[in-house]
Each structure stands twice: as C-alpha cells, then as structure tokens.
C-alpha cells in the first residue's frame, strides 16, 4: 500500500470510528520508517481537514467527528514514547503553546509543538481552553522564546487577541515572539498583526519552519534580536 493509499485507509478507519484499524495503518507507516513529520503532515493533518469538511457537508455527525478526533489524538499519544526518545535532548529555544479560553480545537497546535520538539525545541503544550491569567503566569514562569496561540473559528479570535494583549501588558522579563494560527488567520493573514501577534503560519509545517528559521538565525548572532 502506498502512503497515499494508507492515508485513505486511515481516513476510512477514523470515519468508521474503528480505532483498531486506524492504529494498524499508523503502525504500518511507522514500520516502514515513516517520520513523525510525514505522519503528521501527510496523514493526520489532511485526514482531520477531510473530517472537518465531511462534518461541514453534514456527512458526519458531531459524535463521529469527535470520535475521529479522539482516535487521532490517541494515535498521536501512542507515538509519544517512541517519538520523545528519538528527539534530540531539548537544547534549543523554548515554546509555550495554548488555545485561548473557549477554544477546544488543539490538535493543530499540538502538532506544531511536537514537530518543534523534534527540532530540539523545548515545548510546553498547555492544551485547550486555557484561562488567560494562568497562561500569562505560566509564560512569566517559563520565560519562553516563543508563544504559539491558535483559534479555529472567528468567534474565538477575541479571546486570542485578549491573550496577546495580556502578554504584551504583563511586563514580562523577556517578551516572547508571539505566533498565531488557525482558520481565521488562514483566511486573512493580516488579522495576525491586528491582534498584536508577531507572525502567523498556514499549518504546522510552516509554523515549525518559521520558528526554526527565526531562532536559528537569532541564536547564531544575537539571541536578544527581535524580541523587544
């Protein structure tokens, strides 16, 4: 079975809510040496997009959509034991990622974290719907080089903007680079600047590449650059 066929097989499995079959597909890919990047970007990311479209077209119930998401989350979790051991020891910059209050769609952001972890970043993924104040407190404590926030639909953008504003006003000892992502920013990249973020990315791959480039360059000359 080709990778494309495996992707379709995976999509079929999660659509049917058959996690056993879905895991078999993932295991087969891992077996043939498929990297985490490939799994995330070639299998999970397109599958979840397809599921979302199917839900939009009313071809899937909410329950089915949630089950597909849950299966994919679990498939990711099954990879963690293998994946963290294979990662380089975290020596690069630190990233703290979270979904603002009310936002439950978190898989995309977790993928960004996992991919950066593979590049040697030290990532903390806080999860979905994180209360604003506790998030600011965490950023103050962890002193990350970058913060990533995501919103899946425009109703969640105000909460995200409020989080960015709170970070800007928090008098942090070190102001992190603020990266935002999600559907609304995909539709209108200019929105990123409007909410006060430093950058946006189309997907997990671009976000990882953008941050990696930004900090590779920064670490090679002046670590304090771009972060006033």
């Amino acid at each position, binding site marked *: 079975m080709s990778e494309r066929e495996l992707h379709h097989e995976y999509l079929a499995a999660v659509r049917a809510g058959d996690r056993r079959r879905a895991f078999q597909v993932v295991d087969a890919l891992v077996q043939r040496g498929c990297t985490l990047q490939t799994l995330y970007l070639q299998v999970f990311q397109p599958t979840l997009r397809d599921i979302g479209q199917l839900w939009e077209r009313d071809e899937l119930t909410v329950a089915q959509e*949630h089950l597909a*998401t849950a299966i994919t*989350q679990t498939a990711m979790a099954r990879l*963690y034991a293998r994946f963290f051991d294979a990662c380089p020891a975290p020596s690069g910059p630190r990233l703290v990622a979270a979904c603002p209050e009310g936002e439950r769609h*978190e898989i995309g952001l977790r993928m960004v974290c996992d991919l950066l*972890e593979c590049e040697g970043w030290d990532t903390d993924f806080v*999860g979905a719907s994180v209360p604003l104040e506790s998030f600011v407190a965490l950023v103050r404590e962890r002193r990350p080089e970058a913060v990533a926030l995501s919103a899946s639909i425009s109703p969640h953008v105000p909460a995200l903007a409020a989080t960015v504003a709170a970070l800007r006003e928090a008098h942090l000892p070190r102001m992190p680079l603020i990266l935002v992502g999600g559907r609304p920013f995909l539709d209108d990249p200019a929105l990123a600047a409007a909410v006060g973020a430093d950058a946006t990315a189309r997907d997990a791959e671009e976000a990882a590449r953008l941050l990696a480039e930004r900090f590779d360059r920064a670490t090679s000359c002046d670590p304090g650059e771009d972060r006033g």
Partner: protein
Amino acid sequence: MSGFPGAVLALSADGTVLASNGHLEARLGTSLTGRPLAEALDAPSRVRYQRFLERGDAEDGAPWELVFDTGGHVDLLTFHPVAPRPDGAELPRLWLVEHPRDDQAEPLNAELTALNSELVNAQRALGKERTRLARAVAAAEEARARAEAATRRLEALQEVLAAGLRHLDTEALLQDVVGQTMAAFSADGAVLFMRSDDGQALVEGAAAGVIASPGAAPMEIPVGHPVVGRLLEQGEPQLIDDADVARIVPDAPRLSPLRSLMVAPLLPPPGRGGDAMGVLMVGACSAEGSSEGDLDLLRAMTEPIALAVDRARLFFDERAARERADRALALRDEVLGIVSHDLRNPLSAIFMSARALSRRLSDEHARKPIALIRREADRMNRLIADLLEVSRLETKHLFLEPALHPIGPLLTELCERYAAQGAEGVARLECDPDRVETTIYADRERVMQVLDNLVGNARKFTPPEGVIALEIEADEDLVTFSVHDTGPGIPEADLPHLFDRFWQARKTQRGGAGLGLAIAKGIVEAHGGAISVASVEGRGSCFRFTLPRTAAAYDAGAGGRAGSDPQVQR
C-alpha cells in the same frame, strides 16, 4: 428517561469501576464505584461484557444492551479509546451512554472529547518528563562513569608512584613504570626512552605491550628528531597523530603498530636542572585519540617517574662510589700487610749486619753511624709492627687471649714502666695501684698496649709541670679506665678523627705512623668495649675506655660482637 441524559463510567483494566458521573448509579439505585462492573450485570450481559474486556472493543458495534441484575438496562452507544500508558499498555475504558438524543449527544461528546484531549496532553507531558528523566539518569550514569574513570586514574597514578618507590634498581624501575603507565591508560603499548650519556640520543630504557621485544636491541632516536626534538623543546606532553607516529617509526620501528601516541618529556626534578631526562610514550593501536584529561594524567605521572629515576640513579652512583672506595681500602690493607711483612726480612738482615759490624769495628768513627743504623732500624721495626697490627685489626685477625686479671698488678707495672722512661722533664703520673681491687677479663698484653699508648701520648703532650692521672671505676660488668692530662687539649674539629688510621692532629710533628689510637680502638672494641675522648683546649684531654670485668661480661659483649663480626678470633 428525562433526567438521565447519559451515564459515563471509567473502568480499570480489570473492569473495576473507577469513577462515574453518578447517573447510572442513581438510576440503578446501587453504587458501582469500586466494584467490578461484571458483578452488577445479568448472566448474558456478563458474557458480552467479558468479551469486550478481552478484545477491548464491542464485538458488533454500538449500540448493544447491558442488563443489570437490578433489572435496569442501558445501551452502550460508544466508547472512547484513550491513550496508552507510557509502557505502551492500553487502559481500556468504557463509556456508557444510554439513549442519547441528538441534543444530548453534542454536549456529552464534547465532554468526552475534552476529557480525552486532557488525557492525551497529560500523556504528552508524561512522555516528555519520562524522556527527561531517562536523560537525567543517562547523564548521571555518565557522570558516575567519569568519576569511576577518574578514580581509576588516581589509582593508576598511585600505582606509578608506588612503582617509583619500590625500586632502587634503574632497570627494574623503568620496566615497572612503563607497565604501570600502559595499564593506567588501558593502552596497547608504552615505552620509556632515556637520554644517552652523551646527551645526543634517546635510548629505549624499557617497553611494554606491543612495543616490548625482550632481547631486541634498544631503539634509539636522535634528540634532533623533528617530532621528538620539538617535544623536548616545548617540555609539555602532547598527542601525536598517525602521521607524526609514522615519522618516528624509521628510528623506532617497534612503534609501528600504534596509530595514536601520547608523548611526555621526563623533566629533571625541581632543583636538579638540566635537559629532559627522557621521553615517555603511551600509545593505542586505534586512531581514537586520547583526551586532554589523559594528557593531564600523563603529565602528573611523569613527575614522580622522573623523581624515582633520579633517585635510583643517585643511589646507583653512590653505591658504585662506595664499592670503589671499599675495594681501594681492602687493596691498601692487603698491600700494607704484604709490604710490612716483606720489609721485616731485609730489616732483620740490616740488624744482623749492624750487630756484626759493631763487633768487628771498634773504631769510634764507625760506632756512631752503626748505632744510628741500629736505632733507626729499631724504629722502623716498631713502625712495621704497628702497620701489621693495624692490618690485622682491619682484616679482623686480631688474636685475643682473655683471662681474669686483677687490675692492681697491671697498674703497678704501668707505673714502673713510666718511671723507667725517666722522670726528668716529664709530667707526673698519678696512679694508686694499691687502692684498685677490681678485675678485668681481657688479654693482658693488649690492655697494657692500650694503656702504654694513652699514657705515652699524654706524656708526649703534657708539659713537665703538668699531671697525668689514671682513674679506674668499676660497676658490675664494666671497668672504665680514664687517662686525664693537663696538656694543651685537642681542637674540637679534630676530635672526630682522632681514632682514624694515619691521622695525626699535627701533620708537621710526625712522631709515628699515626696508628697508636687506631690500634687502641681496635683492641678495646675487640674486647666488646668502647673508647672515647673529651678535651677542652688549653685545659687538657681525657681518654676513656671500658673493658669487661668478668668472663660473663666479656661473653655478653663478645656475643654482641660475634653477631656482627664473626671473624674475631680469641
């Protein structure tokens, strides 16, 4: 059905209800938490449920009905898979939902999804933490290994130090040191080159491991060698790569199996100065280089090695010098014995002839030179007798015939002899033989010889108005003779040499061969006694010696003497 929007149960791997939202329990009117779910089911449901537990999945898809023994029943709508445990084992959890209406399904599913997300996130954090811990453990392991390696090196250094202290023989020392050095670095070979006597070459002193070749001619590297010369100049240990090893190999072919080499000069110990004493090389057959730490250890090792080599050399030099001196002394004594003995024969002939001449010639002119010949021959005879005596003492062939003698008669004889030499112009001898009642166990003639010598010396140096006093003290075992005089005394610097052979306080006044005190010392010591001198310049001197008082004391002294000097004959 109203008021029962959905039941949620969390089950452990063995089917025990870990937690629930209470809805099902309210409906059934019984508590499930902490109990195996199977216990609450009727028989057919229990079979289906067991199958679920074994497979971890519903056999025929949702929904299926579970009937409880209380008569209540629920339909299983769905279950959510959850994350595996860090060890990979999955924790089966069953979520039971009864008769969900569409408006109920949405919030319930959202709740389940959120719960699952949290679980996965916790799983992620756990995985990260586990990896971090594993890395910390690995780092700790590494640190422990480094500490162990450091300890091993310290022990190795101690071994090398100990090796340095173990030997005084240079060759054995070098061999031991090279072996210990190789062991310290777990190296494949080690070699120590020492600078040749002319300083122009480094000559193999010892080798170990792949470099060792017993019986082979020692390798030699000129000090001007580009690689080794540079090292000697810089005076610091260095790592030498394959290419530089290859440049040494033409001079030192047995280094050829080595791919990497640590080389350290052996600098002379502080204060000794001079060029490097040699070069220590430790090498491995693999190209994997040594670390800076290895160089530090090697540097630390070369110091005690250099010290030990220096010490062994000093010891060797000193021993050689002493042996040479001993040989010279033995030869001198031998010559002395032979010469003295051989001189006596012609001397006898001179005596005889002089006597014959004096009988035949009554001429006044002839008698004077003949008397001179006889007097000088007599003096020469005494000198020869002294020389023979001394060589006998040296070669431990002094014969003693000890016996128990009262001291009184001995002293009487001494006083008579003193008086017979003429009382005019000499110091008075104070001695009261009648008051001395003790005995000595000794060779009487030898003791007289010692007393004659000491009293004779005192007489020689004491002015006529002075006094020579002979005092005797006795305890249970020993008799102490003291000869005091009121002469000029002896300079303090001369005191230690007084009993040495051929030594005279005043080199210009040669009254004899300078053997008298040496002979006296030999005789006293042969009896197990001791002789000593005390003197104050301008006030006089006192010679004191001890002799055994009884046969038992003599034997005790002779016993001690016999242990160290078995050749003394009695």
